């Protein structure tokens, strides 16, 4: 925590940590909402500071088209609010926004932190709404619900409907069935039996055909590709039982099994529903990271003015301007100005690159501290990131899939069951019984063999695995892919942001007597450059007592060079080596420079009165867990590769520290190179996991068998990956693979249980001893065993 002077407001008799909180307090009290301070739970929060939006942003056509909807005469937008930490914040924002004249309605979702705001454009504009949220200390970002997320939402609500109706019908069928069971033993009048059967028929028909429609659709898709999948099993079994029961009810010639159909469908819908909820979690998590790709660009006009145009209208040759903190919009060449640009997401290069006249810049990279004017060399659609985005869709659709255990088993199971049924029927008939009895027993075999447990085995086992992953901060999109993790042979790792922290850290420092840490602190705390921030962090850790805010006489940040200021008649300079070319160096410092590793190291020089007094060496440091995790993977017999867009020298160093041999290291890889490498491995029959975080990893992530993205990474990477690691810890990779193996074991156990169970129950059917009670009981019992087994594993994991 920074030690800053607190702001004491004498008139109110209150102490504030910073001006932002004081301003927020003023607004809140004016609006008579100071109940906020009693309602809230936390008391130490810092307000959000920066906002990249201005009214001009909101007025561009592309923004309006993308984010603003017209609903009944008012404009509507959905915003993601940042900085919320309790319910009181939600209440505060809602109440405050409602007070603005012109705001028609505000609905803030407590769970997702999304606000739906409707306003009358003639009375208030969007900028005022944003400003209000800001003044309270929160951030707002416009939210564009992506198509696939909307579709998922629709699928989930549809599934909710199906399962609720199925449960309703099944529970009612059950209490009718109880009466029927009683009647089986004590005798029942025919017309009452008919009544019950009619009631069950009315209840079960919608369950099978409306709630079970996904199984029919799935069977159809499977048959079209020539596969007897699990859906086919479900449809075959349940339709057969339904049809048979209908026949029996109409001809009054035996026992009906309507309740078995209802139970069967409902159980399996339940399993699928739990799986779907797990998927929904991951989509909600990636909303919070929704980043903004620039929608408009600033054009430099001939008369020196600037004008905003939508990104789509950029033509080659236009001169564009980018301010500190903004994203460069399109690939181009620098015409004037100089600045540091963050390209790690695009090229993997870990330190910001200095850009000056004549240098190339890429769309999507982040401009740090200077103003650049650059000439567009490509149109927006052709810039590197757009190309990657387009290619990603193609790669995703041709991604290889490994057939999971459930699919393999289900293919044989149904054939075996049908064979047994036919055999049973034939045997009974052969031994002198009527065709009807033979048929009945054949059908009894199919009923008992109905794969309720089998169909539940996989969803439930996957769910146990997914829950365990969630506990470790790992989100998995498709539960069925979990067992693929157990078959992994190769792991491909990205360097920057995956193996390393992704930003520079101070590694070594030397300083001379007479260095004033306080002065240095005040210099670096005024700069947003990653290197300045890294030095700041070091200072706060090593010299916390010197971190006191002081006033400077002069201060200036020179982009591309460093910081300059004067304080108490002392001239201070901090920054790059070149900046201090003409200062006084001593021999110790020169030794330091010579001995520091040459690759990937940045130097930060600090001088007082033109004499160098402090020298910092910074590199992008390796995450502490990385070597351990890689060792563990190699011990399991997995081959580990390092693919990076950065230079060979930095790559080799990182690889050495992580125990990856040189032959497995590839540097200066373009996004396309990475994709090709993975596809080559796959052609050789390997099962590959890719771990990455940048835009330049997206193609590789999309083509690997399993793609794992770091939570701090880019949105593209997270979208194409199957797995999201929220805590950015590489250890999660080891946890993921281990959970995959565990799940595979659990799956085999569950399938074993259901098959054994069927093996015991089927002879009963063959022998003609199946009555409705036994059929229903066996179905429930086998399902309970399978679910119980998964729960047992889950409980065991919770104690780890």
């Amino acid at each position, binding site marked *: 925590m920074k030690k800053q002077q607190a702001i004491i407001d004498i008139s109110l008799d209150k102490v504030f940590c910073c001006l932002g909180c004081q301003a927020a307090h003023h607004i809140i009290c004016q609006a008579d909402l100071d109940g906020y301070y009693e309602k809230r739970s936390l008391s130490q929060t810092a307000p959000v500071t920066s906002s990249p939006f201005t009214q001009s942003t909101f007025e561009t056509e592309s923004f309006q088209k993308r984010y603003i909807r017209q609903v009944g005469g008012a404009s509507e937008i959905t915003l993601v609010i940042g900085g919320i930490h309790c*319910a009181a914040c*939600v209440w505060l924002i809602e109440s405050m926004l409602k007070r603005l004249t012109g705001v028609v309605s505000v609905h803030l*979702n*407590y*769970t997702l932190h999304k606000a739906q705001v409707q306003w009358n454009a003639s009375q208030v504009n969007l900028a005022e709404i944003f400003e209000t949220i800001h003044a309270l200390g929160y951030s707002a970002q416009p939210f564009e619900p992506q198509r696939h997320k909307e579709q998922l939402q629709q699928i989930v609500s549809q599934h*909710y*409907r199906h399962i*609720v109706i199925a449960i*309703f019908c099944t529970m*009612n069928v059950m209490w009718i069935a109880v009466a029927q069971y009683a009647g089986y033993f004590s005798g029942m009048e025919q017309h009452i039996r008919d009544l019950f059967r009619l009631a069950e028929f009315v209840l079960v028909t919608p369950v099978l055909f409306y709630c079970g429609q996904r199984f029919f659709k799935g069977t159809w898709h499977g048959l079209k590709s020539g596969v007897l999948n699990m859906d086919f099993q479900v449809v075959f079994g349940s339709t057969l039982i339904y049809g048979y029961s209908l026949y029996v009810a109409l001809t009054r010639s035996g026992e009906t099994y309507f309740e078995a159909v209802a139970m069967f469908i409902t159980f399996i819908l339940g399993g699928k529903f739990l799986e779907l909820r797990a998927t929904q979690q991951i989509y909600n998590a990636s909303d919070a990271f929704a980043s903004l790709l620039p929608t408009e660009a600033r054009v430099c006009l001939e008369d020196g003015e600037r004008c905003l145009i939508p990104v789509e209208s950029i033509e080659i040759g236009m001169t564009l301007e980018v301010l500190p903190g903004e994203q460069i919009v399109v690939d181009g060449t620098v015409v004037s100005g100089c600045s540091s640009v963050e390209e790690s997401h695009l090229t993997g290069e870990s330190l910001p690159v200095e850009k000056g006249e004549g240098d190339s810049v890429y769309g999507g990279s982040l401009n740090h501290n200077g103003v650049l004017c650059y000439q567009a060399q490509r149109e927006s659609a052709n810039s590197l990131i757009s190309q990657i985005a387009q290619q990603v869709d193609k790669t995703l659709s041709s991604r290889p899939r490994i057939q999971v255990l459930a699919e393999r088993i289900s293919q044989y199971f149904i054939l075996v069951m049908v064979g047994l049924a036919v055999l049973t029927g034939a045997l009974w008939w052969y031994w002198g019984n009527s065709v009807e009895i033979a048929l009945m027993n054949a059908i009894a075999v199919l009923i008992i063999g109905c794969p309720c447990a089998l169909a539940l085995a996989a969803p439930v086992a996957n769910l146990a695995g997914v829950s365990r992953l969630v506990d470790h901060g790992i989100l998995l999109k498709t539960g069925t892919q979990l067992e693929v993790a157990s078959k992994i042979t190769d792991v491909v790792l990205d360097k920057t942001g995956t193996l390393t922290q992704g930003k520079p850290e101070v590694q070594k420092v030397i300083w001379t007597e007479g260095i004033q840490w306080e002065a240095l602190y005040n210099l670096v705390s005024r700069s947003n450059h990653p290197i300045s921030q890294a030095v700041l962090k070091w200072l706060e850790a090593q010299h916390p007592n010197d971190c006191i805010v002081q006033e400077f006489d002069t201060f200036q940040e020179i982009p591309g060079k460093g910081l300059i200021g004067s304080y108490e008649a002392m001239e201070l300079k901090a920054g790059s080596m070149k900046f201090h070319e003409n200062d006084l160096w001593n021999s110790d410092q020169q030794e330091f420079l010579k001995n520091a590793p040459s690759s990937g190291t940045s130097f930060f020089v600090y001088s007082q009165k033109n004499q160098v007094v402090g020298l910092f060496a910074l590199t992008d440091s390796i995450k502490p867990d990385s070597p351990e995790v890689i060792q563990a993977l190699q011990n399991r017999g997995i081959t580990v590769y390092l693919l990076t867009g950065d230079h060979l020298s930095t790559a080799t160093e990182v690889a050495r520290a992580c125990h990856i041999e040189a032959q497995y290291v590839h540097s200066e890889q373009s996004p396309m190179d990475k994709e090709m490498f993975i596809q080559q491995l796959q052609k050789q029959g390997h099962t590959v996991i890719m771990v990455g975080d940048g835009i330049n990893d997206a193609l590789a992530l999309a083509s690997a068998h399993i793609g794992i993205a770091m939570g701090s990474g880019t949105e593209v990477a997270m979208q194409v990956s199957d797995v999201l690691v929220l805590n950015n810890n590489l250890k999660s990779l080891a946890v993921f693979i281990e959970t995959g193996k565990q799940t595979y074991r659990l799956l085999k156990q569950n399938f074993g249980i259901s098959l054994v169970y069927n093996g015991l129950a089927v002879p009963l059917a063959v022998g003609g001893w199946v009555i409705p009670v036994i059929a229903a009981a066996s179905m429930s019992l086998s399902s309970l065993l399978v679910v119980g087994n998964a729960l047992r594993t889950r409980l065991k994991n919770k104690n780890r």
Partner: protein
Amino acid sequence: MDILPLMLGVSLVLGLLGLLAFLWGMKTGQFDDPEGMRQKVIVDDEEEDRYQAMLKQMESD
């Protein structure tokens, strides 16, 4: 036993009413915000009422 069909029918219809109410609740988005459901119980509209009263007073002045 002639009452049986009537009993069955009535029970199912009553249950159906409950189901329809639940489905309606889902359709109007009442279950989308579980955290909000919990927190909104605590919130009373004291401030809101005061504010509305203040507005009314300003208008009548």
